[in-house]
């Protein structure tokens, strides 16, 4: 066992279980008299192995761990398809107001009118931005939104006599699209994109049949390219009785520029933790509201918040509903943050956000297009995708470039995605970055390309400055050690 204090605060740290002292606790509460009422046969001893530390000790442990992370507030984080924009502080202040943070979900609804007012207004605002007719806020994240949207489609088609069997998914789609389709009981048919990385209406027409329930499409797609045939594609799907699902992960490119509701989209989800600035939290919590056109409204999850006059009430009496997809009201705290962001920016600010996101991506693209290979000549929206094709002749790959960027103090782009592009580097700068930051990033990428030619070993052995070097992922998977145990390993 080693003392964290001897290791410095920017290298590997001891586990919380490896420090502390028996009997220590940061918790103070007066003893309660009386019986606990739990029979001995149902009782346990104190939890073996649990931490035993003081408050400062615990704080120092986690503060030191935090130093090992890159984050938006300390580094440029151009992770494609993730929209790592600034997460405004005022959102956090709002979500922590006691009369939001200390609400119990099973209190009679008439006692929390402010919460329901916020939720109905948020539904209305999201519907307006996306051009849809109704919204549910229940889904906890994008993938749960996808599943919810597909369930709506299934229920709609089933009522018309046949839920159908297949979902069409472009080869550029996020992995969650096919995974959600399977979970909804559908088979997945992949639709190839063309050389420019977009979907041709003919490809969809060829795949369409009375067996196809829906097409799931992302627009702009994961190459950052607007699917310019979207209306013809939607027509092709509708002609054969299918529905169109839009993965709204890239909505940050579209606010005030084009509305999914005008593209022939029947249902979509929106990632509030992307476009609407709620923090990613190292992997959540997020929120994945689902918007629909009027013909799908009756199928939305229950309970629904219904406005009658000045009052909002919770109603379960929608017999066609797909049911409940999450407990209570979804990730309310995240919804409060997104609402705060939307009223802060207003229509003018939201439109400006999308425009600046597009400007920044195009600027980065221009700065790098002579150095890195651009697989699609199509115009970029809010993100751009390069590959390692120019660097591969020197034996340097996308992974090496990504790791070398860490030494330059930048979080790498999304790598090796979309899958259709070999060695993809998917860069999404977002609108909240300055020109100077974009320049510094482009300079670093250019310098790495030069290193790849002149001293490839430096790039291939990167990173050199991080708390740990490249980690042996194969070993972790071959012999999984997923928890600490007394005496080490398992």
């Amino acid at each position, binding site marked *: 066992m080693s003392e964290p204090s001897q290791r410095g605060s920017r290298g590997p740290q001891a586990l919380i279980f490896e420090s502390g002292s028996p009997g220590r606790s940061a918790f103070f509460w007066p003893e309660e008299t009386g019986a606990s009422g739990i029979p001995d046969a149902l009782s346990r001893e104190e939890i073996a192995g*649990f931490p035993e530390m003081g408050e400062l000790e615990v704080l120092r442990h986690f503060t030191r761990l935090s130093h090992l992370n890159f984050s*938006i507030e300390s580094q440029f984080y151009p992770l494609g398809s993730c929209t790592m924009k600034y997460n405004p502080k005022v959102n956090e202040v709002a979500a922590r*107001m006691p009369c939001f943070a200390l609400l119990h979900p099973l209190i009679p609804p008439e006692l929390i009118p402010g919460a329901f007012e916020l939720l109905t207004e948020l539904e209305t605002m999201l519907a307006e931005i996306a051009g849809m007719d109704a919204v549910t806020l229940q889904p906890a994240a994008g993938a749960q939104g996808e599943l919810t949207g597909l369930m709506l489609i299934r229920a709609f088609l089933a009522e018309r006599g046949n839920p159908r069997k297949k979902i069409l998914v472009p080869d550029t789609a996020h992995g969650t699209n096919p995974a959600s389709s399977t979970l909804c009981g559908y088979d997945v048919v992949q639709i190839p994109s063309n050389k420019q990385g977009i979907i041709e209406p003919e490809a969809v027409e060829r795949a369409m049949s009375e067996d196809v329930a829906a097409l799931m499409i992302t627009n702009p797609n994961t190459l950052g390219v607007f699917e310019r045939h979207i209306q013809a594609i939607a027509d092709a799907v509708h002609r054969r009785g299918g529905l169109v699902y839009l993965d709204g992960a890239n909505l940050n490119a579209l606010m005030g520029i084009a509305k999914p509701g005008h593209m022939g989209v029947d249902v979509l989800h929106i990632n509030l933790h992307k476009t609407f600035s709620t923090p990613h939290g190292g992997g959540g919590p997020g929120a994945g509201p689902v918007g629909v056109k009027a013909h799908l409204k009756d199928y939305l999850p229950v309970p629904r918040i219904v406005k009658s006059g000045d009052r909002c009430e919770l109603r379960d009496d929608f017999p066609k509903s797909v049911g409940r997809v999450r*407990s209570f009201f979804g990730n309310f705290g995240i919804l409060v943050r997104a609402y705060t962001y939307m009223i802060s920016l207003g229509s003018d600010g939201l439109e400006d956000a999308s425009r600046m996101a597009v400007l920044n991506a195009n600027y980065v693209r221009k700065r790098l297009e002579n150095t890195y290979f651009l697989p699609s000549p199509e115009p970029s929206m809010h993100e751009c995708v390069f590959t390692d094709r120019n660097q591969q002749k020197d034996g340097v790959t996308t992974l090496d470039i990504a790791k070398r960027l860490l030494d330059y103090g930048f979080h790498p782009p999304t790598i090796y995605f979309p899958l259709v592009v070999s060695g993809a580097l998917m860069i999404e700068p977002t609108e909240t970055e300055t020109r100077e930051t974009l320049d510094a990033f482009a300079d670093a990428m250019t310098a790495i390309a030069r290193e790849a030619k002149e001293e490839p070993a430096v790039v291939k052995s990167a990173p050199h400055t991080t708390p740990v070097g490249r980690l042996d992922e194969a070993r972790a998977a071959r012999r999984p050690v997923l928890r600490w145990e007394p005496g080490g390993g398992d």
Partner: protein
Amino acid sequence: MRYTPHTAADKERMLRTIGASAFEDLIRHIPAALRQNAQIALPQGLTEVAVKRRMAALAGKNASAQDWSLFLGGGIYHHAIPSAVDAIISRAEFATSYTPYQPEVSQGTLQAMYEFQTLVCQLTGMEVANAGVYDGASAAAEAVLMARRIQDGRHRVLVSRALHPQYRQVIATFLRNLIDVELVEIPFSANGATDADALARALDDRAMCVVVGYPNFFGVVEELAPLRAACDRHGALLATVTTEPLSLALLKPPGAWGADIAVGEGQSLGVPMSLGGPGYGFFASQKKFVRSLPGRLVGETVDGEGRRGFVLTLSTREQHIRREKATSNICTSQSLCALASTVFMSLLGKSGMRRLAEVNARRAHRVRDRLVEEAGLAPAFSGPFFNEFVVNVDRLSERRSRFFAKRIVPGVELEKWYPEMRDALLVCVTEMNEEQEIEELVGTFAAR
């Protein structure tokens, strides 16, 4: 503009570099029909001061635990949260990072997740745990889907009717589209626990798993030994669902009873109630099922110089690798809430967790006894409980307004989910319910 830093000169210079004369050049390839009418009809932006006023005004209309006496549980619990928890999860290094796909610059998040997985294992008495899922309800649904993967060829799911009603609804929603799965509800008996005889009758070789609350929705601590034995007779898996994990600091954990899968809602361990979300679902199982687990897993490994480090592992189960063959579609989860619990459990530690659980159980039992003795209420069930219990209250709906006038919400009315329990009230008592609140609760019930 708020949060977008470019000056007019910046924009002009950037457009010039791009080779565009105006921003519109960048979006001209979008069909004109779509670009027209894309304006957003919402109010203009507000100053930060105005935003805070608006939010405070909305918040001010709500009855919160700050100035109301809430005796509400039923899946979400009001507990004391040390200030240190919020201080850590507010750190931008944790709050504003993404899922740790670049482990060299995410060791903070990864190590904390590894510590979280360990704490969940210790608390539940299970062998492995993942880094969390959306909430307790989706954890319960994912547990059923996991049992389906393990129990190939079996197609019946037996769910206790004493499991949280919303969790049962979510399980039903998830299963609705999987045509080969049949959902069967097992009734509860007079003690408020799952009816073991009814379960034994319903079990056969078609059953993939049995799902029970521990403690269940009525607060009753199920006796798991007979349920485990009944499952064993037919090769069914036993999955437990815990909505109040603080109870597991006092109760023999699911692992000790031989549960195959133990899941639940983690909110009660350091996460504010926040109208029921965000919290997180915890998810643990026996080690032999590790490759069937949904969601993210963090594992230990080493770098080139032999230094210990942590990575996301076994990701060939996950959607970004396996696509339509993934064990789950989950991507973004509830990481920051799991971190809050990690800090919370570390602060309380071995003795603090035990102490807090005891305070809850003792106080709840004292209140239950006083409601019976001084207010003449009848306990609905005889089974042991942790910090919530059901009482029958005559003319419950008529008496509601008397409590509201005193800013008390005395419990969760159960008739909505259990039509036969017309006067039943689920009362929850935690360390946050102070003596004077308890006096008022008992006094208001006693006043006829």
